[in-house]
């Protein structure tokens, strides 16, 4: 496939590894913000092939992982109500709420459906005028234009049986929180390429200036990730801090302006709670007042729900890059992809899921030489 094969070339990858080896003289810690990059790194063994003094810290860029448990509980409450068709991206179905997940609701007769696109949920609302269709609108800036368009289309089509449960999060405030924390170990960031394809790169210059930290906008194929790492190290070794774009075939400085305009119309910035991390000021989007009548939280009186998380799960520390997944005692024991305690073990972008899928028993029982990998029973 064009634009995939070229950026997976193992010969060029070896050249990039050699170049990184050549320029690295000191230890550096680099955070890849996006969970998609985490999976690329672990799947391809990039972290194991880098010089030993380069540490990759996995960031919080997994929207499924950071959706707060209280919001999951609201989703479970709404999905359980009679007459509701609850639509979600597939990743969310196994994320544990306080006492159950969306699969549980489905198994008890709830009409929970996985959709590929938010527009599929709008179509369901058109096809089922007698039902209330609710879409779980989660995601970072990459997903917001699609979710915004669904709400916009529902308004255009006069649909009164469509609403959204919104839990959108934003990348720059998360980088701000990490870079500004006195406890941070991060020397440089790989920014999330697809978030920037929508938002552009202009939001990141002020972060570079404020924290004197290199930020390199990075793609997802192995060569993209290696080039991002190489560029961050080159900056760190030369004592500079700049914003660079290593994903120029997809990301422009301005981003997708039409998408930004739609998002600005449908959503507005709000404070947001991140699962495992806590509240980050101005780190999310909610429906703007203009589209407030599409808010599932007001349409369905979910009220106060007493939410709590697993006491064993350390996903908050994983999400902040403070521990690696296998350093949690529950990893691969009480917590597996089949019976996850936290969302980081569920999502296709969660760091715990990546370690379990690609490292499996190697990290759970490092002395094991061989054996089935990745299965959990």
């Amino acid at each position, binding site marked *: *496939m*064009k*634009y*995939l094969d*070229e950026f997976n070339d193992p*010969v*060029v990858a070896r*050249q*990039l590894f*050699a*170049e990184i080896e*050549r320029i690295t003289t000191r230890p550096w810690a680099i955070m890849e913000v*996006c*969970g*998609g990059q985490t999976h690329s790194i672990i799947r391809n063994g990039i972290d194991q092939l880098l010089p030993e003094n380069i540490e990759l810290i996995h960031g919080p*860029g*997994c*929207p*499924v992982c950071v959706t707060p448990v209280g919001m999951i509980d609201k989703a479970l409450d709404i999905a359980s109500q009679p007459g509701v068709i609850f639509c979600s*991206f597939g*990743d969310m179905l196994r994320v544990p709420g306080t006492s159950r997940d969306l699969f549980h609701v489905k198994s008890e007769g709830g009409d929970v459906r996985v959709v*590929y*696109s*938010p*527009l*599929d949920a709008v179509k369901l609302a058109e096809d089922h005028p007698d039902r209330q269709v609710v879409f779980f609108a*989660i*995601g*970072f800036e*990459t*997903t917001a*234009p*699609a979710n915004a*368009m669904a709400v916009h*289309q529902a308004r255009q089509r006069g649909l009164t049986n469509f609403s959204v449960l919104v839990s959108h999060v934003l990348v720059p405030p998360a980088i701000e929180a990490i870079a500004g924390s006195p406890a941070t170990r991060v020397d440089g960031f790989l920014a*999330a390429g*697809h*978030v920037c*394809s*929508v938002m552009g790169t202009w939001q990141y210059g002020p972060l570079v200036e404020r924290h004197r930290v290199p930020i390199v906008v990075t793609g997802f194929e192995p*060569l993209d990730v290696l*080039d991002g790492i190489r560029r961050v190290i080159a900056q760190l070794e030369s004592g500079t801090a700049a914003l660079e774009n*290593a994903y*120029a*075939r*997809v*990301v422009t400085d301005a981003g*997708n302006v*039409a*998408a930004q305009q*739609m998002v600005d119309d449908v959503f507005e910035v709000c404070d947001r709670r991140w699962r495992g991390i806590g509240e980050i000021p101005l780190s999310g989007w909610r429906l703007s007042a203009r589209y407030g009548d599409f808010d599932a939280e007001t349409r369905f009186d979910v009220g106060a729900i007493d939410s709590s998380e697993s006491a064993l799960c350390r996903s908050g520390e994983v999400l902040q890059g403070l521990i690696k997944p296998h350093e949690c005692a529950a990893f691969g024991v009480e917590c597996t992809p089949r019976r996850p305690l936290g969302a980081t073990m569920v*999502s*296709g*972008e969660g760091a715990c899921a990546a370690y379990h899928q690609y490292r499996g028993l190697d990290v759970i029982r490092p002395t094991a030489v061989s054996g089935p990998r990745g299965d959990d029973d």
Partner: protein
Amino acid sequence: MCLAVPGRIIDVGDDRGTRMATVDFGGVRKEICLAYLPDVGIGDHVIVHVGFAISKIDEASALETLAMFDELGLLDEGLP
């Protein structure tokens, strides 16, 4: 979630005023919304996320990056 994949536009159409396309992902074809990329057409490669084309892939930039990788390789081989 932010997983987005490149595909090639093979047909362009319209659904009640919204510009749509058939996009080929190495053999798998899907209907994709083009509302956010008004200027792309048949033959263009785009990055697709949850049913929406969010960015056109710039061929010149892709070639430039690959050429830069090439140069790095030559540089490395030239070292003593």
